[in-house]
């Protein structure tokens, strides 16, 4: 029973996807949304039932659907067992967390999306893509082997592409979609190479056995796990928008807001975190890569925090904040605190989905105005949305009591004495927390306080679907912290406890971590006084004339320009220069040569009889002469 439920988990949305794609144009809004949201509800319910079956007695549930293919390197050698790659699902503590987030949050966002996108001419296509995304994401987290995981991995990438470019008539959206796909594809390719390497070294790709096999093959610090972990990390940074492949995420905000909430905040972008947590067996054998993970995470969280400070688009602020929060997760993974990272993944999914969806509701009410400088004073005018948004921000800033507090504190607490992280990264994390609270406050002041700066009348949505989904998410964000114990318990079997030395930690660590966000709030209260004032002291406050430095930060600290210069431009220039295909030109040289010879010989064919006669005569004379000379010289010798 449980197994059947698990087996069907990804297929409800798949069926809904097929129906919507096949007959979408003919379905009414009611039918289409019932179908897609209903499929999600089925998935969510069955995933909760299945997760409840997990216990200490039944730590994993496996279900085998069918054999995909067999990698049989050498049929002549009987001692090599062929590696079976199956369509099989594997549910354990980690994937349980993931499917509950994916199907649960996914369900709520589907509800929201049904209301948000009502009236779009391609509504059913939109819901179909969302369903397909859930299918791929569920396969990704449930896969029992890395190839199936890769299937989900690429599948979510394709859906992300489709949904970013959903409003395909805008050139900018199309380009953003292309960029997202290609940049993540770079990471995916690294990951694929990692898979080839893993298979060559270990002879199979089963997730469950990898850790065990890896331990028998390698010891910590070997070269093979180093490279493999590095390549897998490449895949993870691509998907999770971490340095150096982070540039696609801000542009991905071109998609409809529910997409940003579902794919670019709650689920897909955390796939990289999931991958590293899943492959912890390999990563632990490569301590250097673990510290790379930590440093990349720290660098990303700082970079994204700084970039978020300079944005003027509400969704881009949230996008950079997502990058920075995933940076925390990576940092935590790199420090060996896997469960803390996964816990933050979950709470982040709650509150970031809430933030994005509320932002979506606000944007909808403002007639698709996303510019923060054109908002202001929304606290009184949209009290419902404003309350929910502030709940989200409180969680994001990790104020005590909120879900974000529990998870972020759990991460920060592990950093100081971790062997792969250390005090320096602890300071980075604290500084990141400060940045987080500053940009959150800036966002809040700009959007909700100060004077009204938008022109049109507000049109808040009254849809119950929309409100219910927001309320549930808000509830989850507030109480998310209570899952901490269950989560740690269910994950404890998966992640080894690393040796650490908490005795050396100074006493003030915790207090500093708790106080930091408040410092940020106080600082912003003073520094951004103009933003929250109804009559700002400086009249030019809302003119948005950014200085060079602000522009630089707003554009993501120049990474786009750098990649454009280093990769995109040379590639397209190479393509343009060689459009005619150099090899073809070389081969056509033959043709050119033949036709040149043809022209030369043709010119002798004058058609004048007398010339021919003269040529015959001349040639005869020459021939006779040469013969004579030859016979003379032969006679002489």
């Amino acid at each position, binding site marked *: 029973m449980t197994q059947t439920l698990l087996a069907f988990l990804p297929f409800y949305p798949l069926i809904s996807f097929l129906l919507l*794609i096949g007959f979408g*144009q003919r379905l009414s809004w009611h039918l289409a949304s019932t179908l897609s949201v209903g499929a999600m509800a089925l998935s969510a319910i069955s995933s909760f039932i299945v997760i409840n079956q997990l216990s200490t007695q039944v730590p994993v549930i496996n279900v085998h659907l*069918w*054999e*995909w*293919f*067999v*990698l*049989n*390197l*050498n*049929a*002549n050698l009987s001692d090599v067992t062929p590696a079976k790659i199956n*369509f099989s699902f594997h549910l354990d503590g980690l994937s349980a967390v993931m499917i509950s987030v994916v199907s649960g949050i996914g369900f709520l966002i589907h509800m929201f999306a049904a209301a948000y996108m009502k009236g779009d001419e391609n509504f059913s*296509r939109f819901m179909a893509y969302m369903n397909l995304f859930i299918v791929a994401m569920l396969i990704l987290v449930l896969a029992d082997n890395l*190839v199936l995981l*890769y*299937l989900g*991995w*690429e*599948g979510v990438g*394709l859906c992300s*592409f*489709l949904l970013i*470019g959903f409003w*395909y*008539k*805008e*050139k900018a959206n*199309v380009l953003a*979609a*292309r960029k997202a*796909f*290609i940049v993540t*594809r*770079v990471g*995916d*390719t690294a990951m*694929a*190479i990692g*898979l*080839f*390497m893993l*298979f*060559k070294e270990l002879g199979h790709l089963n997730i469950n056995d990898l850790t065990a096999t890896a331990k028998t093959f390698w010891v910590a610090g070997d070269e093979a796990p180093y490279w493999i972990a590095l390549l897998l990390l490449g895949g993870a940074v691509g998907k999770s928008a971490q340095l150096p492949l982070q540039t696609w995420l801000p542009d991905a905000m071109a998609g409809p807001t529910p997409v940003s909430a579902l794919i670019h905040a709650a689920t897909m972008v955390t796939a990289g975190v999931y991958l590293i947590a899943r492959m912890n067996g390999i990563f632990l054998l490569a301590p250097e890569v673990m510290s790379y993970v930590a440093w990349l995470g720290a660098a990303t969280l700082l970079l994204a925090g700084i970039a978020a400070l300079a944005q003027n688009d509400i969704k881009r602020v949230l996008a950079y904040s997502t990058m920075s929060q995933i940076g925390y997760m990576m940092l935590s993974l790199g420090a060996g605190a896997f469960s803390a990272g996964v816990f933050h993944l979950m709470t982040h999914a709650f509150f970031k989905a809430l933030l994005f969806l509320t932002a979506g509701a606000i944007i909808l009410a403002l007639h698709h105005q996303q510019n923060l400088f054109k908002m202001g004073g929304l606290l009184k005018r949209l009290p419902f949305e404003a309350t929910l948004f502030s709940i989200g921000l409180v969680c994001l800033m990790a104020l005590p009591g909120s879900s974000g507090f529990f998870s972020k504190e759990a991460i920060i607490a592990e950093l100081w004495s971790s062997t792969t992280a250390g005090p320096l990264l602890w300071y980075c994390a604290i500084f990141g927390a400060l940045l987080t609270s500053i940009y959150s406050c800036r966002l809040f002041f700009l959007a909700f306080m100060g004077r009204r700066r938008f022109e049109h009348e507000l049109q808040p949505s009254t849809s119950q679907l929309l409100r219910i989904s927001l309320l549930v998410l808000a509830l989850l964000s507030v109480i998310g912290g209570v899952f901490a114990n269950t989560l740690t318990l269910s994950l404890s079997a998966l992640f080894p406890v690393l040796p650490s030395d908490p005795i050396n930690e100074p006493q003030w660590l915790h207090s500093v971590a708790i106080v930091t966000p408040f410092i940020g709030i106080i600082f912003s209260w003073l520094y951004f006084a103009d933003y929250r004032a109804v009559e700002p002291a400086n009249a030019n406050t809302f003119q948005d004339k950014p200085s060079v430095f602000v522009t630089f930060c707003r554009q993501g600290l120049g990474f786009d320009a750098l990649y454009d210069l280093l990769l995109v431009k040379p*590639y*397209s220039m*190479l*393509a*343009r220069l*060689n*459009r005619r*295909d150099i*090899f*073809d030109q*070389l*081969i*056509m040289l033959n043709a050119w040569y033949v036709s040149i010879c043809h022209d030369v010989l043709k010119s002798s064919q004058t058609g004048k009889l007398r010339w021919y006669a003269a040529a015959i005569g001349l040639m005869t004379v020459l021939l006779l002469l040469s013969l004579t000379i030859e016979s003379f010289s032969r006679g002489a010798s």
Partner: protein
Amino acid sequence: MNITLVMFSLVLGGALAWYFETIRTHSARWFALLTVLLVSGYFVLSLIIIETDFSTLQLLTRISWISSFNIEYALAVDYLSLVLVSLTLLLALICVLVSWQEIQTKTGFYYFNLLASIAGIIGVFTAVDMFLFFFFWEVMLLPMTALIAIWGHENKHFAALKFFIFTQVSSLLMLVAIIAMAAIHFQQTGRVSFFYQDWLTLELSSSTSIYLMLGFFIAFAVKLPSIPVHSWLPDAHTQAPTAGSVLLAGVLLKTGAYGLIRFVLHLFPSSSSDFAPVAAVLGVVSILYGAKMAFAQQDVKRLIAYSSISHMGFVMLALFSFNAIAYQGAILTLVAHGLSSGALFALAGVVYSRVHSRDLTNMGGFWQSAPRMGGFALAFAAAAFGLPGLANFVAEFFSLVGAYQRYPLLTIVAALGLIGSAIYGMVFFQSVFQGDAKKDSSGEQVSITDLTARELLVFSSLLVLLIVIGIYPNLILAFFQDANIALAIANQAGAL
């Protein structure tokens, strides 16, 4: 199973179509369709009935033909030939269907050429007498040239000539090699023989063998095609009528790969193993160069043509990696690429029939008016860039995993082709179907008719096959599970 009957009926059907078109217009396409359907029906039926194990070559026919040189009419099949013949017949059906409206002049003669070419291709896949093989090699070439030269687009004569010269020059090398092999057989046994299985037992000195191997290799590399002798392909594909492109990409290129497997690897195991690094490098260069060139193209069909070059690079790399996984990957690539590139060319043909242009700059925003076409385009582009769940992914994955066992560094470089393919796939899909809808001269948005029922049938059948093979590749791989011939031979030669 009677392959002779299959080939004969195809030619006969073509001739009948030609004849009856003169009596009644539009009868030719029905004749062609009927012929292909009947022949495919017969073929499938006999596949079901027959119980022979085809994991090694099974002789079907062997009749003396030119007795003074011991030339025979000999046909034999194994699973490799059967899979490729099935693919050929399937694409023949697709070809007839996509030509349905497109061909308006000399229709009868067109279908005759089409069917004759298909008969020739089937002959290539089944002949085991080398002279006969060469004969079929030419038989498939001539009607194909005619297809391009008569029913092609604006630059058809040039393209047809280029195609013809490339193939002819390279097959001349093969002819020389064939004759030399027959002569060597005479030296060793006192009897001239063109029979394939006789040749397998020949013992060649390594220096002769490398030259003979190169003779075959070049002929097949041109057909495959591989860098640097690929340049006939973009021209031929671009100028050919839709069915011609489908046939070229879908099966004609596969004859090159088939030749590499059947002749180069089997007849000259040790010299091909010596030569393997060069071939593998050629494969990798083809992958990357093809992907890069595809990105640079403005012409839809040229873009797809270069993507074919890129995909065939995977075949080359995999075949010369000498292991079972790579070998299976190569065979699966043949099938998957046959389906996906055939579909892409058919799609380009459909778009051409609507907008009468192949230029990407004249397209854009077609999703608005033709969502179904866009959906299929996306699916086939996704197949081209190896989206998991479609057949091409499994094929590429096998090829690369296999190749990695032997050439780790080269494979890593080859894997960059995955990025390249994503780039051109996206450029193709997005510039045709996304973006703002193009305006025509009067300022109206260009809107195109969505797929008709006939086109829907063509594309959905191809897509279903791609998906089915993609999630259940054992459908094909099951036949090659223990048939790791290439590996066995390389082992014998002490290559591994």
